């Protein structure tokens, strides 16, 4: 899907009342997910994870280990899904692809001078091209938050559209870095800009800035996706990333997706978790739910 909109076609964004958002989020959190719903939800969470390593000290060894884990979440337990994707820097795309490709696991690459985005457009385009050429299925770009906060929304829009051009068949996730946008009104505006500029997914955070994927932020972005769908009939995906480290929080994310967007979005085609440590907590919950016995982290491999 390539949305072809011009900046002046981005509709005005509704204002957001943060207190109201917090109340709404509390309602999602009061949903009680038990028994069969819990088990189904937990497995869904696993299948939606973008298992991530994005560190300056990443090495081939580290990436190799993580990629193996992506395909073998917990060998002691048959019938578990694999994760949706691994997420790495462009330099690791080729390696990652060679390991996980055969399991149907996608390779996502951050790009556009991740995480700051402070580079000229041609550098960002080159960065993206490199990742795509090395086999990235998905591109996780960052927006220029400085430009956004300076009011240069057109610039942000054009940049996203330019990156979308070079993605080719790779799906584009646009990282808003909500922790730097400071208000939910900004989050909503940035979401609308990203969606109309051609994002296949919108994503909360790089994982480098706190706060990251709070439920309030994710809810606000889901509403933007909902409104776009209502206006155009086109689906956009959502990826909260950073800060989702336990199963309960992940399940409440799914509750939000179900109630705001609908069950059509409850698949890793349209919803992802960007996380490095979520998988093990979910695995522990799955085993606990099956056996009734509380689990220890010692029995679940780190990566």
């Amino acid at each position, binding site marked *: 899907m390539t949305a072809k909109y011009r900046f002046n076609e981005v509709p005005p964004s*509704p*204002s*957001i*009342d943060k*207190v*109201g*958002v917090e*109340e*709404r989020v509390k309602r999602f959190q*009061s*949903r*009680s*997910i*038990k*028994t*069969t*719903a*819990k088990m*189904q*939800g937990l497995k*869904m969470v696993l299948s939606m994870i973008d298992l991530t390593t994005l560190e300056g000290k990443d090495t081939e060894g580290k990436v190799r280990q993580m990629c193996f884990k992506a395909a073998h979440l917990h060998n002691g337990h048959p019938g578990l899904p694999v994760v949706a994707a691994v997420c790495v820097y462009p330099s690791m795309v080729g390696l990652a692809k060679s390991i996980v490709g055969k399991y149907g696991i996608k390779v996502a690459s951050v790009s556009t001078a991740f995480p700051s985005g402070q580079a000229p457009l041609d550098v960002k385009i080159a960065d993206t091209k490199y990742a795509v050429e090395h086999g990235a299925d998905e591109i996780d770009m960052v927006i220029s938050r400085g430009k956004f906060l300076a009011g240069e929304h057109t610039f942000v829009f054009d940049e996203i559209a330019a990156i979308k051009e070079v993605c080719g068949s790779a799906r584009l996730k646009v990282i808003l870095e909500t922790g730097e946008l400071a208000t939910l009104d900004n989050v909503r505006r940035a979401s609308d800009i990203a969606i109309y500029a051609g994002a296949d997914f919108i994503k909360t955070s790089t994982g480098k800035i706190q706060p990251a994927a709070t439920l309030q932020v994710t809810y606000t972005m889901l*509403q933007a996706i*909902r409104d776009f769908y*209502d206006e155009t009939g086109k689906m956009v995906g959502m990826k909260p990333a950073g800060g989702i480290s336990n199963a309960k929080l992940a399940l409440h994310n*799914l509750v939000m997706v*179900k*109630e705001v967007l609908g*069950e*059509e*979005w*409850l*698949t890793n*085609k349209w919803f992802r978790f960007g996380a490095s440590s979520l998988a093990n907590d979910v695995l522990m919950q799955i085993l606990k739910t099956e056996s009734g016995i509380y689990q220890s982290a010692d029995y679940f491999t780190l990566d």
Partner: protein
Amino acid sequence: MSTKNNAWEYADSIESASHINLRKQYGLYIDGKWVKPSSNKYFSSSNPHDEKHIADVSEANEDDVDRAVQAAAKAYKLWSKISAAERGKYIFRIARLMQEQARELAVIESLDSGKPIREARDIDIPLACNHFFYYAGWADKLEYAFPNQQKKPLGVAGQIIPWNFPLLMAAWKIAPALATGNTVVLKPAETTSLTALKLAEIIEASGIPSGVVNIVTGFGDTGAALVAHPKVSKIAFTGSTAVGKLIQKTIAGSNKKATLELGGKSANIIFDDAPIDQAVEGIINGIFFNQGHVCCAGSRLFVQENIAEKVIRKLKHRMQSLQVGNPLDKNTDIGAINSKEQLKIIQRYIDIGIKEGSEFFQTDCALPVQGYYCRPTLFVNVAQSSILAQEEIFGPVLTIQTFRTVDEVIQKANNSPYGLAAGVWTDKGSKIFNLTSKLKAGVVWANTYNKFDPSSPFGGYKESGFGREGGLHGLGAYLK
């Protein structure tokens, strides 16, 4: 993509009722003792979810009411001599005991009234506890509330409460009455007596002197006897406007002081510059909270015409995610209608609306086969002159009207005999204050709806009643 593969339904998550402690049969709580009704008559309190019997409750007649009032009058002599600080400490005790039993109270409330456990647990019971806690602290500070006015307690307060917030209403009534040094005879609604009786047990356990609080259960006759009793110096009533008027007629010419908290048909107004998704949530909270059994429910929605289509689309979508069903299920958003009678009343209004030809919408959710249930319901493009837009339905039924200008919507919102509450949704501060000052309503929620707090006075204009409950001003109702 296939929706089927992604289907994810919330499994049952039923709150356990194994820890609740209910007697098979309840007497009347008079003068610190549990006594049999002199009529020897009992009636059944049942669960509106499955229509099953829960417990037998006494039917108090005139003699029983007289016994209770006499006990309260006798206790008043003692209670008014106890130092204010000590009086406050008893009320603090009640608050704490309620907090300890909060979960049990929540489950009983949900069973007996049909309200969702989530609301009983997160809203009704905590607010009820907090109400006692709030007013306890006032007992020895009354001279700060009304400086230079030398206020005094009234004597015996006769209190009659409705079935929509059984324990919360009991707290709203009893806590300020005790804090100001009055004694109490309280009559709960006949369909929801149980948490008031549990409260009687708590009050008994608090060691408060006998007769300071008396609880008599029964029907309308019991309430009428209480209103008419010559030794009652104060009537506090929450319920329908019709009954409120009857009470006013009964006490005309007497020196009885009254506070009436009656019906409403409150306007919830959405402007085109509102935070729209939060406004939609406010509409939902406004009308579907407690099955719409809320006197201040935002039952008349006014949407600015240029965003009406969008708001209604969003509203319908949001409504579809409301779970209707077993009140004890933690995921239930809308529980059972309190009684068969009330369900009939609601159905009758829905029939009228359909006949009048307004656009009608109900959600698709499946309803339990047994019990008293009603789907969340909308009527779109309703005229101001429609019965639906004028009369209080007291159920999950919302009427939607559109408007073009600020002046128009103020006029339409005020064009009602009621004046309990109103909601205003806009991002513009000066517009908010224009509306909040012009709307004839006792409570105005701006960019929020159906919020309650012990420190916040509540009560209406016009036929929604008079007097305030809650907050500093709520003390005034129990002083002269």
